[in-house]
């Protein structure tokens, strides 16, 4: 059984990224927990393969036309980063500010939004909301380009308050209209051509075009507005400033952070009716929000070093999202050491499991937690992880097998084999039932060192990939 230090580090690495292997965990433990947290938050990641390399072999990965290559490019980054924390952060914001291909028909604009999340997603929340309000993908997705002086479209105003900042019950319908008025004139350049291309899903004549924000003073309603009790000739920036001052905003964002990094909360629509799992933690995070000037990174630093995060009670208390499952597995198998055709196919698996990156089911994003699981997606999830872990030709799996063989020598016992494998895969903790089942399986196949054949180990690793614990993070 791994030491407590290793188990805690494994928990941290699953939450800040997609899990770490045994060797990585040993290295991080030596640095010390708090240092590791600071490094992850403060250092820029390194990528094993450059974007030039990806682009040479898979030209659509960085200049995407369609709906899928963006997700595959993103998945490469999750797999090839030494600390995929920034990609985890963009995944976090993508789940909240969910924007989708269905309406945009333009992969580049979506990929730009994900880049924006990784650039601004750890900064001040006010800046992030400002960038979001100027983001071309969001402007089309929630129709702000169709909102005009004297003829508002409320869509963005409503979701900004309901889904992106305060949550229902903290503002009135009148407030929504005032917000919509304040954001009139916030649109995209060449709006008619860009929306015509999106609506017609047109790649003609020469492919899709990237988009950029444009502020149209003459279409902005500059008159006085009253929002949350304050009155003035508000523009969008003023609205965001007022939003960020609200206690409700602090709580709403804190609850999202808690749900993503600590343990699954119920889906957002249920929040007004269900108390948080840990109200004190939400309260404490809200305080940091105000103390540190709405800074997300400082909220996370506090969180990762907090007792409630480190507590064994929350270890493995989340269901892996399909992207977490796929990225985490590929980091173990290390099968993509350079751009590879199979990458595109692999990325499609997140879609089969119900999470098509940059194409969420609606503006609400995906419902996380146990809602990932149904009898159809369980088949996809189990088959994916078991076939990847069971493929002994994968570089990472080969290495695990070599480690097993060099560590076991003469004293083979089923317990020892199980322990090594679970450690190698990132210090996975399993229940008594699972352990007994694995034990019986090993006993039925492997008596001694000489039975450690590739076929037997492959079957064992497939069973490990299929165990319920592998579905948790």
């Amino acid at each position: 059984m791994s030491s407590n230090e290793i188990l805690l580090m494994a928990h941290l690495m699953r939450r800040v990224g997609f899990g770490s292997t045994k060797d990585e965990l040993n290295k991080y433990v030596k640095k010390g927990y708090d240092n590791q947290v600071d490094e992850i938050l403060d250092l820029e990641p390194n990528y094993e393969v450059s974007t030039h390399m990806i682009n040479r072999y898979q030209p659509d990965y960085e200049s995407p036309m369609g709906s899928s290559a963006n997700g595959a490019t993103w998945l490469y980054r999750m797999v090839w980063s030494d600390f995929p924390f920034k990609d985890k952060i963009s995944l976090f914001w993508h789940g909240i500010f969910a924007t989708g291909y269905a309406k945009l028909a333009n992969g580049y604009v979506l990929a730009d939004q994900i880049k924006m999340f990784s650039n601004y997603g750890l900064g001040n929340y006010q800046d992030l909301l400002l960038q979001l309000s100027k983001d071309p993908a969001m402007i089309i997705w929630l129709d702000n380009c169709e909102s005009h002086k004297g003829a508002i479209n409320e869509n963005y105003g409503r979701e900004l308050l309901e889904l992106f900042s305060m949550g229902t019950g903290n503002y009135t319908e009148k407030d929504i209209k005032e917000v919509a008025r304040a954001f009139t004139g916030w649109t995209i350049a060449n709006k008619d051509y860009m929306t015509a291309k999106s609506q017609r899903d047109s790649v003609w004549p020469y492919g899709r075009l990237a988009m950029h924000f444009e502020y149209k003073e003459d279409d902005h309603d500059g008159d006085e507005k009253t929002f949350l009790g304050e009155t003035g000739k508000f523009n969008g920036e003023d609205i965001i400033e007022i939003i960020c001052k609200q206690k409700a905003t602090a709580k709403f964002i804190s609850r999202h952070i808690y749900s993503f990094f600590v343990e699954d909360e119920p889906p957002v629509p249920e929040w007004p009716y269900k108390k948080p799992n840990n109200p004190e933690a939400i309260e404490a995070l809200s305080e940091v929000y105000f103390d540190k000037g709405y800074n997300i990174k400082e909220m996370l630093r506090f969180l990762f070093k907090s007792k409630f995060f480190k507590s064994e009670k929350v270890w493995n208390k989340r269901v892996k999202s399909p992207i977490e499952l796929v990225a985490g597995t590929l980091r173990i198998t290390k099968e993509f050491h350079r751009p590879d055709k199979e990458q595109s196919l692999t990325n499609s698996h997140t879609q089969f499991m119900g999470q098509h990156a940059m194409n969420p089911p609606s503006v609400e994003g995906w419902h996380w937690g146990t809602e990932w699981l149904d009898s159809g997606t369980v088949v996809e999830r189990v088959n994916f992880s078991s076939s990847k872990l069971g493929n002994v030709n994968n570089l990472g799996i080969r290495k695990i097998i070599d480690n097993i063989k060099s560590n076991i020598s003469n004293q083979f016992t089923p317990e020892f084999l199980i322990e090594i494998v679970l450690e190698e895969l990132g210090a996975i903790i399993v229940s008594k039932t699972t352990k007994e089942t694995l034990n019986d399986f090993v006993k039925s196949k492997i008596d001694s060192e000489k039975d450690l054949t590739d076929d037997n180990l492959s079957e064992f690793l497939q069973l490990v990939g299929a165990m319920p614990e592998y579905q948790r993070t």
Partner: protein
Amino acid sequence: MLNSNPNRRDFLIEQKERSLVVIQLSGGNDAMNTLVPYTNGIYHDSRSAIHLTENKIIDINGSLGFHPEMGEINKLWNQNKVAVINGIGYPVPNRSHFRSMDIWHTAESETIASDGWLGRTIREIDPKHKNVVTAVNFGRGLPRALVCKDVPVASVGDLNTYGLMPDIKGSVQRENVLNYFSRMYGPNQGRDAILNTLSENGVSAMTGVDILSGANSQYSSSVEYADNPISNNLKDIAKVIFANVGTKIYYAQQGSFDTHAGELFNHAKLWKDLSDALGDFFEDLREHDRENDVTVLLFSEFGRRIEDNGSGTDHGSGGVAFVLGGSVKGGFYGEQPSLELSEQVEGDMKYNNDFRCTYATLLDQWLGIDSVPILGKNYEQHNFINTGI
């Protein structure tokens, strides 16, 4: 296969139930080269590059004809088993594949919805989800039409290889590993919410696999289907129908109909494969005396431009759908849209009947389910179902 739970099939009542097969023509089927207004001069003028040869078009009423490759569908038409739904669409056409397909899937044309119309239907049919195979999708990943919270749908790539952990070599080894799998997902396993859900779904996944592989092994037929994706899917659907496992909804796709270029060749191949596959499927149903129990809907997210672009056609609106089956009253439903310039919408055929009228008809008259809660309101219905049967 798995004998660890002999009671697993108890809830399945052997009965020959009615079912609906939905085939999505992905990419936007060119309605004008499917149901061809070949006596109309505007057709020939606007399709200078890609019009179909007049003497090969299969005439059906003196002014309209099927695409030359739709011979098998024409045979069903002659038996009065094909309802042609002309001018089908929705208000304010959207010509993006994804958005338009979403509209057809969610039956919601104004706002972005996440539930699918068939997902909601399954929830009505089996609210306690007693049967994990009430709906079966052929293809990987669930189309939004079938998505609905807490509604289980089996997604099958290929019935012959469908199952858990297909990479385990050898059936004996696989059965062995699956026994351990079922222990790990069994009732002895833990108590928290995640484990309960995993355990529940792990068990229903095994049940689904068990039922569907049973359907595969029981099947026998003298019909020889061609070897292409849509034929394979329809053959798999026939297998599940004959196994009487309570499946009410089947879903499959044919494509891509996105014929911006090289349309004459590509469109012909797509319809040949589909039409032949449907011919074999209905022959198979007849052989098993099930022709009257199955209704097939063919739909596409939109039609295409009236005028060609030199080698294909671009995205348009206004399309044609087909409903086929032994219980269908053959004939024309909806009106053939006029091709006159004044009647066009931005160069497209104008829709004259809402696709939700067709959905409502299938729900109320075929599946016997109240369409109003599923579609959100009462839509006028067609009368293409032969209610006498």
